């Protein structure tokens, strides 16, 4: 290895197990971790499995754990590591490994299907949709989500507790629920569902998801906490409770109070 080389330890393996393999390749100016992975593919290991698309932090495909931290490989510069520092790249931990750096993220796509669709209110009398910039900005923040699923990866409710997955949708889908709930045109109600089906109650606001978000979405403060507040005022407000009883509307979707998380 010369000064113009870089080394990377990449986890190689599949569902049955694997190990880190160290590769050394020539360096280029301004390299990111994904560039090094690509050079390893081109020169040493053409069968090294990795997902990527845009290489500019816009598509959220190249999520991995770099020295154990959930990150996008395309936005992690090699010069952020000290000379000679060991750099490891491993697949995200929360989802099952398919091969090398590729995991089975179908959990997320299944959860997406369970969120009730956008349902707009009628148009204005003149046939237009009028919304003001200040009224949509907080939802636009949520729409910045690139679905890298790093927030899902880091969330301790599912990271170490496979058993919570059926009843917990994770930060990405709390952001989606918040985006729909706060959309100025939407008329669907998902508040009871957020608690009963998506397990919002499991979140104890440690903000790990906010910390790893490459889009700097304030997941905890702007999405999760406001949703929790809406649930509280809906579920535990005595007047609202009495009104629901009188109208005979069920308080939830039949799932009852969520079990306490095993975390």
């Amino acid at each position, binding site marked *: 290895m010369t000064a113009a080389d870089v080394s990377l330890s990449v986890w190689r393996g599949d569902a049955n197990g694997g190990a880190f393999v160290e590769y050394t390749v020539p360096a280029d100016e*301004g390299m990111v971790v994904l560039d090094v992975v690509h050079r390893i593919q*081109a020169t040493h290991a*053409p069968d090294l*499995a990795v997902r990527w698309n845009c*290489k500019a*932090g816009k598509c959220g495909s190249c999520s991995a754990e770099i020295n154990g931290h959930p990150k996008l490989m395309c*936005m992690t*510069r090699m010069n952020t590591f000290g000379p000679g520092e060991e750099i490891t790249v491993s697949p995200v931990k929360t989802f099952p490994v398919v*091969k090398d750096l590729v995991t089975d993220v179908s959990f997320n796509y299944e959860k997406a299907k369970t969120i009730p669709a956008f349902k707009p209110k009628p148009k204005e009398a003149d046939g237009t949709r009028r919304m003001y910039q200040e009224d949509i900005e907080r939802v636009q923040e949520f729409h910045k989500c690139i679905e890298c699923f790093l927030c899902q990866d880091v969330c301790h409710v599912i990271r170490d507790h496979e058993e919570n997955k059926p009843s917990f949708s994770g930060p990405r889908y709390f952001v989606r629920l918040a985006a729909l709930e706060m959309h100025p045109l939407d008329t669907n109600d998902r508040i009871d569902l957020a608690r009963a089906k998506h397990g919002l109650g499991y979140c104890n606001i440690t903000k790990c998801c906010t910390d790893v978000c490459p889009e700097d979405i304030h997941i905890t403060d702007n999405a999760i906490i406001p949703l929790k507040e809406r649930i509280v005022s809906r579920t535990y407000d005595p007047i609202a409770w009495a009104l629901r009883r009188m109208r005979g509307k069920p308080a939830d979707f039949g799932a009852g109070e969520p079990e306490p998380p095993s975390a």
Partner: protein
Amino acid sequence: MAEYETHDYDVVVIGAGGAGLRAAIEASAMGVKTALVCKSLLGKAHTVMAEGGIAAAMGNVWKEDNWKVHFRDTMRGGKLLNNWRMAQLHAQEAPDRVLELEEWGALFDRTKDGLILQRDFGGHRYARLAHVGDRTGLEMIRTLQNHAVHRGIDVFMECTLYRLLTEDGAVSGAFGYWRQSGKLVLFRAKAIVLATGGVGKAWKITSNSWEYTGDGHGMALDAGADLIDMEMTQFHPTGMVWPTSVRGILVTEGVRGDGGTLKNSKDERFMFRYVPDFFRGETADTEEEADRWYEDKRNNRRTPDLLPRDEVARAINAEVKAGRGSPHGGVFLDIASRRSSDYIQRRLPSMYHQFMELADVDITKTAMEVGPTLHYIMGGVRVDADSTQSTVPGLFAAGEVAAGMHGANRLGGNSLSDLLVFGRRAGLYAAEYAKRVAKMPRLDDRQVDTAATGMLAPFERTEGENPYAVHSDLTETMHELVGIIRTRAELEEAITRIGRLRERAQRVGVKGSRVYNPGWHLALDLLTMLTVSEAVAMAALMRQESRGGHTRDDFPKPDPEWGKRNVVVRRRDRQLVLKSEPLPEVPAELRPLIGEDKPTGKVALEPVAAASAKE
């Protein structure tokens, strides 16, 4: 006989970017059984990277805007090589398609009175691009994705389709493999929509991702369909040039739309020297007028920084070749001296982030270094303008893989609208076609067998050459010999080299298993890229003029006769066959909208003489 699984659908849509998603939504709404098949995870297709906006003459910012002006801009931007009917349908239907996204939950930036805000872009007379900061593509793909998911469309993710099957000349299915498992998969279908995007990965410096390997172009050729305009490739004028590892990544035209100007190493706004006669009437000829235009668009002409992309890319190329480039071989793009830090971060958040994170450059304080990057191919599958059907019955195409809409050069913002307008039409007409087909087409076992054998062949050659090495040589060849400025000798050399690369590609080997094996995937994609690259080089050799995305150093002017013709590429007896055929003629009633009949005078190679534009 290799094992494979079989699925039956009325309509199979290949590709899940904007066009594919919109097609699948429409087909499913028509009540036919629809599958959406994509190489990546859902929501990661190229559309997600689109930045600047969706062009649609909604007239929210400029009341004067309407479809006729948009049609005119599109035709002139395309140097009149466009299929006029596609340009007309696109201009007429784009506003409805944008408003439809709003009905499905999209949140565009707003005007003061609460309507969709529109921004300036190159070649568009009025501020016309509906946008969300500089991440419009993300908003569009996520909106379509969510809508498709809620419609319950069957999505096959990380599944590559590699060959089309035909029965009595009509399409009957598609064959490919699951990327995750490597298992083979067959779709029987009454109709197929190609929405596979472009072929940028054949070039060295490109804004395109690994997915852009020309799959749809290659599959269509193999199935007997016509391609047109393959010589028309778009180099986006502003890609990042430094650091080396990010070279080619896109810098949105929105930077110029929002006030950024191009400068050379002498701090000159060089674009004023590159205004072709064709656009002189509508372009400012002094810096003072251009500066006034940002504030008063009614009484001033637009800055030449916002000429169509082909003009700007050639100009930057010429400045760099003349020794007036930036330290890393580009030119400067400066928005910091016109706009406040706050404005830049609000309007261009992704660009701010991208330069800060990847290049240590604060674009609110310093100029960016930018240069041309292969971005788009105007050429592709020849389609019927209204139905998007190719010359093969049952095979439809929409988005970048289809041709005609953009002529010789695409205007920025016209791609996202193209995806929506023709994606919808493809889904609609494919569904109607499928309804007319009485029963599921028969399978031709021979075609399936041939495809399977070819796909698995690289595993037989474990000692063969690394496919990455052959791919790297292809990208060098296309970059050097089929770039912005072309000559006969270089194109002939390119065709020879592509032939030699094909021999190497047929001998590449693959190590490891079929499970998520990128080396194997590339070994197959390589053959497609070689075919499509050959089509581009041969078409470029045939067209002896300069027009739009095709500039010949040995024929530096547009030729009125060539302006009336498409170059058509077909595969016959395993060979590519080229022919020039007449363009559909613009009807008399639309001709006055376009203005002067033909491009006149010099192209933007001058005033730096054509000869010096190339070393």
